[in-house]
């Protein structure tokens, strides 16, 4: 998943992911052998929740640190500010959902939702904050990155495959929008309508990911290229997770495959945390006092 020369923080993130994933595989094997959800349930409720908390908190801290390295008049400050707010929203979403599910040491907490007129319950509010709200911040941040890449002509031309993929994304997004519009007659709650925004926002993020990937292909495998590559990986895995949820809702996945698809979200969380870690490594590498001058081939 990562090379041996990866920055220390990135290595730490993926080592933690590997340990967590190994535990998850044990729980999954137990599920396959016994057919019960006891170990699997424990793994996702306790270890899974802790993993998401640690990863989103790390991502948030790293993204705000990256932002602090840019002055107020620098364009990438806004980009990293938006990415940091996206991480903060994802962290807040995880915490709100944990509180709503009552998965706390002191038991369930009865809280009235802050915007009770908008959201049906606290869980729905958590889904909105960690979903569409976070995606909107990330879309603005990546938009700024793309703008800066364009300014320096870092992006390569789109291939035929890219164009086909973009058309498919737009077509899927429009079809989802039409399905949702037809449901408006049933007077859904404002919270439900807000959650519908996740599909078009994810489509927008995928389009941005395709464009960012072109820059990564063009410039190679340096620290900043890997930072953008991690955002692409995180967005693609998030889309795969969403697709798995959609397939499960339409009874297209077996029980075993459904349980396996839940692991995708851990990859997305680790990739999201790795992106600012790579950017910070690129910034810090020039500050290291005993660093050797890089020699060119």
């Amino acid at each position, binding site marked *: 998943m990562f090379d041996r020369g990866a920055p220390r923080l990135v290595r730490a993130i993926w080592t933690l992911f590997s340990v967590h994933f190994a535990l998850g595989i044990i729980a999954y094997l137990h599920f396959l052998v016994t057919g019960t959800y006891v170990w699997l349930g424990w793994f996702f409720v306790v270890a899974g929740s802790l993993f998401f908390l640690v990863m989103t908190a790390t991502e948030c801290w790293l993204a705000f640190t990256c932002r602090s*390295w*840019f*002055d107020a008049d*620098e*364009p*990438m400050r806004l980009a990293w500010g938006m990415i940091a707010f996206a991480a903060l929203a994802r962290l807040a979403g995880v915490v709100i959902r944990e509180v709503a599910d009552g998965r706390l040491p002191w038991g369930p907490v009865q809280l009235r939702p802050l915007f009770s007129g908008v959201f049906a319950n606290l869980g729905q509010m958590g889904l909105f904050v960690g979903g569409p709200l976070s995606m909107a911040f990330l879309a603005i941040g990546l938009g700024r990155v793309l703008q*800066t890449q364009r*300014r*320096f*002509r*870092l992006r390569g031309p789109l291939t035929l495959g890219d164009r086909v993929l973009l058309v498919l994304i737009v077509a899927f997004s429009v079809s989802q929008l039409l399905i949702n519009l037809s449901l408006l007659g049933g007077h859904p709650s404002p919270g439900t309508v807000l959650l519908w925004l996740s599909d078009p926002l994810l489509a927008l993020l995928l389009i941005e990911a395709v464009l960012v990937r072109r820059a*990564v292909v*063009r*410039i*190679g*495998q*340096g*620290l*900043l*290229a890997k930072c953008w590559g991690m955002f692409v990986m995180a967005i693609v895995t998030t889309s795969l997770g969403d697709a798995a949820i959609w397939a499960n809702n339409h009874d297209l996945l077996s029980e075993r495959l459904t349980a396996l698809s839940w692991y995708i979200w851990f990859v997305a969380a680790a990739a999201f945390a790795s992106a600012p870690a790579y950017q910070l490594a*690129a*910034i810090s*590498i*020039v*500050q290291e006092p005993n*660093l050797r*001058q*890089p*020699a*060119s081939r």
Partner: protein
Amino acid sequence: MSLLSRFQLRFRKGEGRLVASEPILLESASPSGLNDLTERLNRWGRLWSPAEDESEHTHAQRIVTRRLTGWMERCFGEHMPASLSGAGDPISLASSMPVLTAFLGRRATRELSRRVLRDV
């Protein structure tokens, strides 16, 4: 906002009042001092952006190009120097500093340029 605009803004707000000072007597510069300064500026100019028609690059220029190429590869990627140099010219401080400043920030780039120019 440019430095001049900032000064004008502060001056309009009355923050920067002009204080009458004693007239400063400037000594006329010696011809050798001027030549030295001109030579330094030209050297820095050649280092910042080597002329396209320059047939032979100096040792300092080669060192700067090599170091810059190394940093660009490490920070961006192995194809970055080629995509930046365009028509095949070696990368220079002038061509690489804007993109480094944009993606690494002003402070990090200042430190990087210090490293690139060390002992040159």
